């Protein structure tokens, strides 16, 4: 069996190929921004021609794409229209009236008006009450007339969001029928399907986003499906979604808003798998990229899911893996403020021109330049030797920008940059875990991205974390996450009922219906998924609260609703620090069906490359010492399973460098991952 993961990143499209009994194969292919599917099809060509993969033997082809996210960032989605209840067309523009920039005097809009400015928003007579009963019947002629106007103005898709449609979808459904009858080429997104939950602004916004990316995603995935089929791949295309599960391309095309921010989600899913292989289910993943550091928590083997995320600062109520970005990364610029204080970030040199040591014209002192000065990075072996770093440029820029003005040596300035950025990242990680009521010291740190393992022991030390797992392939963990991901379908329904006196049969009835919908979606998936895991959840809150918690609902329990209430109290206590016996209510019910997925990246055992473990030496500076030390420098690929080394040490590999401080020791696992632990443990 051959399984393929293809993940599009900003610079590279990462490809991972897993075959029974064979070592994992990986390759990075330059991304093709104008049409990302070109790089995907090139990767198929690479597999066939270089790896000798028979396309017909590919059983699973999972794809991670940034096309939906980028359509929003670049404002390249479709021209859409929005249809609303009479009196409410401006809900999309008014939003919740809060601002993010608290001290800005000249403000910028906080709502995604660009999706549908006023002239593209139309009202139709119809109204439901707060129980879903019809107060004003749908004016069908008005629907057709409004959509005709929109079509004449050139819209490609229409979003429909009526008040209280989450309680009664009939008006929205009828509107779609009318649109399909009269304008068969138009794409439609209904709020009762995209996000059947209360709060009209959030529901309108996510439905409009869905319509906005729908034509783009539809064309993209159709092209890709055709392309891989032409290349002889018979396995249906699967696509990674925001919640960390994959689904058939044909399903994804119907609800494309669920692709938002799926890239970081795949990395977390990959992190879960690596953690599991290293024997831990509680992991904090820290992906240190160029401009930011993405932090995510995996507790008891499950990535934290948030019910609402943000894209470009706009709220999107899409369940997604809870990834928290802080503005500190390898490209973060070190600078001096007017009082001579050393700051790092939030400005970043990005990848173009990048840090000064890239030699591409960067003139700002960055964290990566400091890493070069400190000896952490090998100028001749960065990105596997693909990019030669200019160590002199790194020294010169830190000397000019930081060391000379502060009267420090270049090394002291570089150390300072690291200390400041590490303090920032450590406080960021602490806050993410404390918000969930979790103690970071009980977690294993899993550093990702090219720069993550450079900072890992320093961060762990600051946070009191004793164990670090450096994945064997930290640079392609998102692609690996695609192979680990389960096929997943999730459907929810608003169910605003108090728990007290609630009839279990009513809950069962709704969940049965949701299960049928999930099963129908699952039926679209390729074979081998006959026995899905079925999970049920309820969003629960104390009556009067306006925030809720997702709590697992076990219908097989003795008294499922009593158990639900108890579990809600436990969750409330963990996250909010207290719970009471006050009456609670359900807000939404949710069914999740999962199938497949894997906990191991590779089928065969890890084997070192057979070359002798011959450590080199180079001088580095660690924040603990003022004098340079000369640690052993190891080639990761040569380290056999079971190999043990003690800090100070440097472990180099094509996609990252691990810095191991004194007081830490490391062991290579059977899976090839590197476990770094505090003390002699």
């Amino acid at each position, binding site marked *: 069996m051959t399984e393929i993961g293809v993940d599009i990143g900003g610079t590279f499209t990462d490809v991972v190929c897993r075959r029974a009994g064979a070592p994992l194969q990986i390759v990075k292919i330059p991304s093709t921004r104008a049409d990302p599917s070109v790089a995907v099809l090139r990767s198929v060509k690479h597999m066939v021609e270089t790896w000798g993969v028979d396309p017909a033997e590919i059983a699973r082809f999972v794809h991670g794409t940034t096309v939906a996210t980028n359509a929003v960032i670049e404002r390249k989605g479709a021209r859409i229209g929005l249809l609303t209840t009479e009196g409410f067309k401006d809900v999309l523009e*008014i939003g919740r*009236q809060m601002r993010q920039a608290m001290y800005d005097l000249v403000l*910028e809009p906080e709502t995604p008006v660009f999706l549908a400015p006023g002239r593209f928003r139309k009202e139709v007579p119809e109204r439901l009450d707060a129980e879903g009963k019809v107060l004003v019947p749908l004016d069908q002629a008005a629907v057709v007339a409004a959509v005709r106007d929109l079509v004449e103005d050139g819209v490609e898709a229409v979003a429909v969001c009526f008040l209280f449609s989450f309680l009664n979808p009939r008006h929205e459904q009828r509107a779609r029928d009318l649109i399909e009858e009269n304008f068969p080429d138009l794409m439609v997104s209904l709020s009762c399907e995209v996000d059947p939950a209360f709060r009209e602004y959030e529901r309108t916004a996510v439905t409009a986003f869905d319509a906005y990316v729908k034509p783009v995603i539809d064309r993209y995935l159709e092209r890709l499906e055709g392309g891989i089929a032409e290349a002889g791949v018979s396995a249906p295309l699967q696509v990674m979604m925001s919640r960390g599960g994959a689904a058939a391309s044909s399903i994804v095309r119907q609800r494309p808003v669920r692709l938002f921010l799926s890239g970081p989600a795949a990395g977390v899913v990959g992190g879960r798998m690596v953690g599991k292989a290293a024997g831990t289910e509680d992991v904090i993943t820290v992906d240190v990229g160029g401009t930011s550091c993405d932090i995510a928590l995996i507790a008891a083997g499950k990535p934290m899911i948030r019910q609402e995320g943000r894209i470009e600062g706009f709220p999107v109520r899409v369940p997604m893996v809870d990834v928290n970005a802080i503005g500190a990364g390898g490209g973060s610029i070190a600078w001096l403020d*007017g009082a001579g*204080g*050393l700051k790092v970030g939030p400005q970043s040199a990005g990848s173009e021109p990048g840090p000064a040591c890239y030699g591409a014209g960067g003139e700002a002192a960055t964290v990566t330049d400091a890493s070069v000065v400190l000896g952490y990075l090998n100028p001749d072996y960065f990105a596997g030797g693909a990019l030669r770093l200019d160590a002199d440029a790194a020294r010169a820029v830190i000397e000019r920008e930081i060391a000379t003005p502060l009267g420090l040596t270049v090394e002291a300035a570089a150390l300072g940059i690291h200390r400041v950025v590490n303090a920032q990242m450590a406080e960021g990680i602490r806050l993410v875990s404390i918000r969930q*009521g979790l103690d970071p010291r009980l977690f294993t740190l899993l550093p990702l991205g090219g720069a993550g393992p450079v900072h890992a022991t320093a961060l762990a030390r600051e946070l009191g974390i004793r164990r670090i797992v450096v994945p064997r392939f930290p640079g392609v963990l998102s692609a690996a996450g695609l192979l680990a991901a389960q096929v997943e379908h999730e459907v929810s329904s608003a169910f605003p009922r108090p728990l007290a006196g609630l009839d279990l049969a009513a809950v069962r009835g709704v969940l049965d219906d949701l299960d049928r919908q999930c099963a129908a979606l699952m039926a679209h998936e390729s074979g081998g998924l006959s026995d899905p895991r079925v999970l049920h959840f309820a969003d629960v809150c104390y009556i009067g609260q*306006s*925030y809720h918690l997702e709590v697992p609902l076990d219908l097989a329990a003795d008294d499922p609703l009593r158990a639900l209430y108890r579990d809600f109290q436990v969750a409330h206590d963990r*996250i909010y620090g207290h719970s009471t016996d006050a009456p609670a209510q359900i807000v939404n019910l949710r069914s999740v069906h999962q199938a497949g997925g894997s906990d191991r990246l590779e089928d065969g055992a890890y084997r070192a490359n057979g070359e002798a473990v011959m450590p080199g030496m180079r001088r580095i500076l660690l924040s603990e010492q003022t004098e340079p030390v000369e640690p052993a420098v190891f080639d990761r690929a040569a380290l056999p399973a079971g190999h043990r080394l003690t800090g100070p040490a440097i472990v180099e590999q094509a996609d990252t460098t691990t810095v191991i401080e004194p007081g830490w020791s490391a062991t290579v696992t059977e899976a090839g991952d590197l476990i770094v632990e505090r003390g002699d443990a």
Partner: protein
Amino acid sequence: MTDLDPITVEVLRHKLDGIANEMETTLLRSSFSPIVKEGLDASASLFTLNGETLAQAIAVPIHLATLIPIVAKLREAFPPETMAEGDIYILNDPYLGGTHLPDIALVMPVFHQGRPIAFSATMTHHQDVGGMSPGSVPTNATEVYQEGIRIPPLKLREGETFNETLVAMLRQNVRIPDTFMGDLNAQVAGCTVGARRLSELAETFGHNRLSVAFEDLLDRSEILTRQAIEAIPDGTYSYVDYLDNDGIELDKRIRIEVAVTVEGSSIRCDFAGTDDQVKGPFNCVPSGSQAAAYYAVRAITDPTIPTNGGCFRPVRLDLPAGSLVNPREPAPVNARTATIKRITGCILGALKQAMPERMPADSGGELLILMFGGERRDGSRYVTGELIAAGSGAGAKRDGVDVIETDATNCMNLPVEALEMDAPIRVHRTALRTDSGGAGTHRGGLGITREYEILDGEVAFTHRGERHFCAARGAAGGGDGAEAVSTIRRADGTEETVPSKLVSVLHPGDRLIVETAGGGGYGDAAGRDGAAVQADLDDGKISREAAAETYGLKGKST
């Protein structure tokens, strides 16, 4: 390298900010009442032993620096050398450093090796602290005694032992004692986490290095703030704006006058000319006036300057005793939010003269508060509130934003679906208010129109508006924003105009139509880009008449 290299100071700053954020997270996380959890009406700070702010975590600017006079008063009542580890002090009296009675402050000394080295403090807006009406913000109060229980500087906890007498007294004087104690305990948790982490920091870095670093951090923020103020041309800039009325004397506008003097790296705000204190609860004690001034200074300097006491050193306020901005006991103060917003607007308005390019036109600066209380058909009671924003002022380079929170507050509105599921009220319209944005080369932000209908029962109704009688002014030749208008259309067809503040009763079939203010425009309307005018017309932000008459749009129509 000396002990106090700028790197160590910056590392410490991140840790202090991290501690303040952890305190705030703990506070919000463990609070009970929705006003804290959803309104984010709580803040956490670390203070030096001298009472200067070291680090502060806030979600709304109205909390900026409001703990400073409280810490000062508590230090005065309980000198630090008399404090013991584990002590916690409490205060809420606005005439002894507090803001208004629902805002209760707790202050805890941080100990290291048996000596106090700093303070950890939290402030929470409590859901109810007693007084004449539920929620403790009575619009019709005329004395502070009616607003709730007044807590002078007291010891809430001595070491690990709570002052049970005080706790019993507090519980007896509030309407929802369990919620009250829950929120108070969340404050204790917030203070405790701050004290613990700061004390650990002293252990790691050494107390002496830490206290030198504290001074250094304050000095740095002061230097940066002074540098920013120096960039503002010297001079005295005056501005006058008005509050509609105090809710008691409805025909009397309340004048706020400020003269902002920029001299070198200092800034002084003199409120001579401001009206005397008023009968209604719109009086603002000095801590509130300070929050307004500090917000304005933060906004005109660089918001990335670390917030600590150093930022506030260059700022002086002259607050005439007995005036609206420094009332005498026992004037009521609970509704001072509107006043703080207007003071902020006045200071920023004055600075428009100094920096016309950087400063926007006036914002609506209105946070309309509506309260509905009544009975559902099943006999259960409900109280529901709405906080509704106006339009923001246009700037030299862009239009104002429609319906957005500005200046010292930052509250969310209530979804129609949430309101209707909770109360027998129907909303017929939520719309941008056409033509409400001040005309200009850059148009002011629009206000909102919202229309409600009462479905069931008798409803006790409170309306607390602003900008009904004094518009947000345009800048650089731009037009004023529209004034706010609220109308009650009774079931029998009669109409009443709400005089900005109103306490009334609504009945089934009665409709309330509120229209909030628009922001001021910037620059001459004749200079507005024709395509922008056409887009505004197409999007319904201006009417055809305004397009033709104000902006001179000809030809093409839609």
